[in-house]
């Protein structure tokens, strides 16, 4: 099941109510968009919050606590320590999931970092959760709202590039590296990842213009992609082959299958995927790496985010049922499309004309 629907209609998906809502507090208003629009209060809410988050996030947390009345547990996460993040997820899920009544778990993926979300997926897998899990993602109506197109930015700097805990891949030391970057708006982070890895083969996966979340930020996206292309032109070596292909930013299953197909066709390389587009595509990358343990996932932690103008929330959410057992086969995988001239429709990282 995957559906794009108005936030106001999300309740329709939960005729028996929500046993547990899981969300991530952030400086973005998007962190409470889903919770705010649920008419029926979840039985319990598990809210994660970064230890080092600032005043805006604290204000948003207060708002979310207000929305949940007293049905909440707030858990701090240390963004600099994946191990403690995993432990916090595991403990919280152990207590809250066991305590939760029958019914669905609703995870709002929107404002988790890519790394946190991926670790959460592995914890869910290891715990063997039997509840039905629905994941939701609120897209952005606009990005970098406090800048003009020329000066668009979402994050700056790269504090560290590391493998994502739980996704070390199964590398063969003798093989060369194929780096797959699922590019989004954050050019500097993508560039740092490419520079750091110096891959033998590089694939830039861009959002599929036929599957857009929103068509409202074409100019911003085009500007970003031009910057990235300029970097790639400069950085690619004479031997490194740089390829581009599309990945779905709105359908995690298609994103998963695209990554799986690319990785399975590439047995001569160790494959590292760095997801930097929507959280939906990141879930897809996570599912691919859970299904194919050869794949390593890497994460580039930003130093600074545009807290005052990162985005404004859309009124629509993409929701899908998350397959806990990952038994879905990849039958009917579509051929990987090569970028051509895209339509105006696109989302973060979609290849512009």
């Amino acid at each position, binding site marked *: 099941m995957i559906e794009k629907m108005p936030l106001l209609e999300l309740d329709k998906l939960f005729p028996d109510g929500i046993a547990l809502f899981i969300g991530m507090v952030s400086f973005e208003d998007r962190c409470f968009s889903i919770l705010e629009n649920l008419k029926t209060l979840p039985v319990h809410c598990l809210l994660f919050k970064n230890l080092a988050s600032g005043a805006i996030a604290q204000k948003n947390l207060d708002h979310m606590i207000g929305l949940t009345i007293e049905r909440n547990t707030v858990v701090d996460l240390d963004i600099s320590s994946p191990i403690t993040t995993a432990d916090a997820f595991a403990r919280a899920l152990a207590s809250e999931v066991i305590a939760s009544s029958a019914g669905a778990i609703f995870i709002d993926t929107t404002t988790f970092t890519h790394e946190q979300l991926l670790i959460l997926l592995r914890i869910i897998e290891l715990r063997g959760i039997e509840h039905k899990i629905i994941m939701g993602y609120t897209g952005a109506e606009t990005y970098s709202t406090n800048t003009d197109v020329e000066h668009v930015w979402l994050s700056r700097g790269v504090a560290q590039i590391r493998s994502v805990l739980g996704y070390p891949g199964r590398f*063969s030391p*003798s093989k060369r590296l194929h780096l797959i970057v699922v590019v989004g708006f954050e050019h500097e982070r993508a560039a740092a990842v490419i520079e750091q890895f110096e891959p033998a083969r590089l694939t830039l996966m861009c959002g599929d213009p036929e599957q857009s979340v929103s068509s409202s930020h074409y100019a911003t996206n085009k500007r970003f992609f031009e910057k990235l292309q300029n970097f790639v032109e400069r950085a690619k070596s004479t031997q490194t082959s740089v390829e581009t292909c599309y990945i779905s930013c709105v359908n995690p299953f298609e994103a998963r299958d695209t990554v799986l197909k690319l990785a399975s066709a590439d047995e001569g390389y160790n494959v590292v995927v760095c997801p930097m587009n929507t959280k939906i595509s990141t879930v897809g990358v996570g599912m691919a790496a859970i299904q194919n343990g050869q794949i390593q996932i890497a994460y580039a932690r930003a130093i600074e985010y545009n807290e005052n103008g990162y985005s404004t929330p859309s009124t629509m959410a993409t929701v899908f049922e998350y397959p806990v057992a990952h038994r879905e086969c990849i039958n009917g995988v579509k051929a990987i499309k090569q970028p051509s001239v895209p339509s105006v429709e696109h989302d973060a990282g979609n290849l512009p004309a």
Partner: protein
Amino acid sequence: MSNNPFAVSSPEMMDAAEILRLFVPLAESFETGAPGHVFIHGHRGCGKSMMLRQMTPDCMMLSSGKSLVELPYLGLYATIKSTDLDLSDFERIHNQYAGLVLAEHTLSLFVASKALQSLSEHMGESLNNEAAKQAIEKTCSQFVIKKLKSVGGVFSVSADLKSTQDVLRQSIKAIDEVYGVISSYIRNIGLTETYTPYTGPLVSYRDFLFPFLCELTQMECMPKRKPVYLLLDDADNLSRIQTQVLNNWVSFRTGNKVSFKITTQRGYKTWRTTTKQLIETPHDFNEVDISTIYTGKHSKTAYPKWVADIVNRRLKEHGIQVSVQEFFPPDVEQENEIKDMANMRIKNWEKEGKGYRPGDDAYRYARPDYIKGLGAKQMRTYSYAGFEQLVHISSGIVRYFLDNAAAMYGEEMKLRLADNSKNKVVELDHLSPDIQDQVVRANADKLFFGALDKLERDAAEDQGGTSAQHFKQLRNLIQALGGMFQLILLSERSERRVFSIALSDNPPEDVMNILELGVRHGYLYEAAIGTKDGRGRTRRFVMTRRLSPLFKLDPTGFSGYLFVTTQLLETAILNPTRAVNDFENGRLGTVVENAQLPLEFQS
């Protein structure tokens, strides 16, 4: 092959012929060719990887005309990528004994696999014969296959191997299979607080890797009884505990049999072994810093020649038959005016000359005079184009030159293609001075504003306020130095082209930490010079010329030092404006001309 002649290739991906065509040896021969462990430090892009790669047999055979057996050593290349070994999942056990044992195990297997891969790829045709096949099969069977089986490795073995490549592939596959066991193990340990013991095969340096490597040069088909050099590229990418394990191996002092030649980008995590012992130079190893070789005695002519050789080879490779000077032309109008000023200096030397020879004055003052003559408002119009200036701006790191050149080439090509209404093939025979100038200016801004901001924020998040404060202080120091160097350039002093400071006393540790931070991140280079009284040596710090456009400095010149006191440095790191003002008012710092010392980048 890229269409851009200046695109930087990873040596890992280049064959011997290409390495030979593009590689120009460094001006200085270090002891890397001699037995013994060596650490080769250097900023990204100064030629470390090329240096290691050309020590592999295929390159050495091609360059020397010798056969494999005649080589003085067997060089095996192994590059370490960012998350090859340094995995977040290992953090769970890094403080436990298991973490140490598994670090030894993974590093031993990783290096063994890479060594075999290098044997497979970097020997040319030397091993493609029956005698070599049989010898290698015997060695691999005994030291890889049987060894791994004896510790519980599970993998299939074929009795029907047709070629040396088959033999090597089988051993590589066996190692990769055993490595896969640890990969599977670590996939889950990071996610649970419950300790899961590792029950798979275990090997170590002493019982597996070292005996295997030693045996390689016992074969007739190899450089017999010669040492094996393990050429480990980018050891900064190891985790701390893996670094400690590598330090253990270095501490064994097995240089006559197995020597490690290890490159780092100055981010090597520790010099301690797993038992907390310090490995030291020259006791355990030698070390060289190749980013600084061209700021010393070789800066005058060797570096520009080295860069010209490299650029020439790349231009030829792309069918561009012009000289480097023609390909990177300066702003002709500007250069003519500077020449006129130089001629005027020569003409007036007898009356007004300051130097020993007319040419000294012409060289020393013409360009600063020109910059000064532009006035504060027009100074931005000074052009940094031209091969000579670009070489100086690259500050001894060839990658900086190539990166700038690649960007310039890309921009020029974009412009030409946009103007190419008749869709003809565009062939560039020069890069316009305007584009050259724009690129180096943009990179100077990026270096000072972007990169330092990044480092400062990085430190603020990762290491606490103290370190972030250090980056702020470094920025202040650079700003103060740039400001003072600009004042000197625009002054009537006899020596105006100053780019470095020398310490006239011993600054306290906190000041030295800031200077060293600058060196570590490529804003400063460190060297030594004689003290003012001539009785000893003192430390000298040279500011990178990549910042020349930012401070409107003449990048081509250097013939004096600013001797600074601790007082000046302390003022500079706290309040750069005040430091510059105090200097301007003659309260701090002395400019010293010292003709006996090497003049950096002076041509």
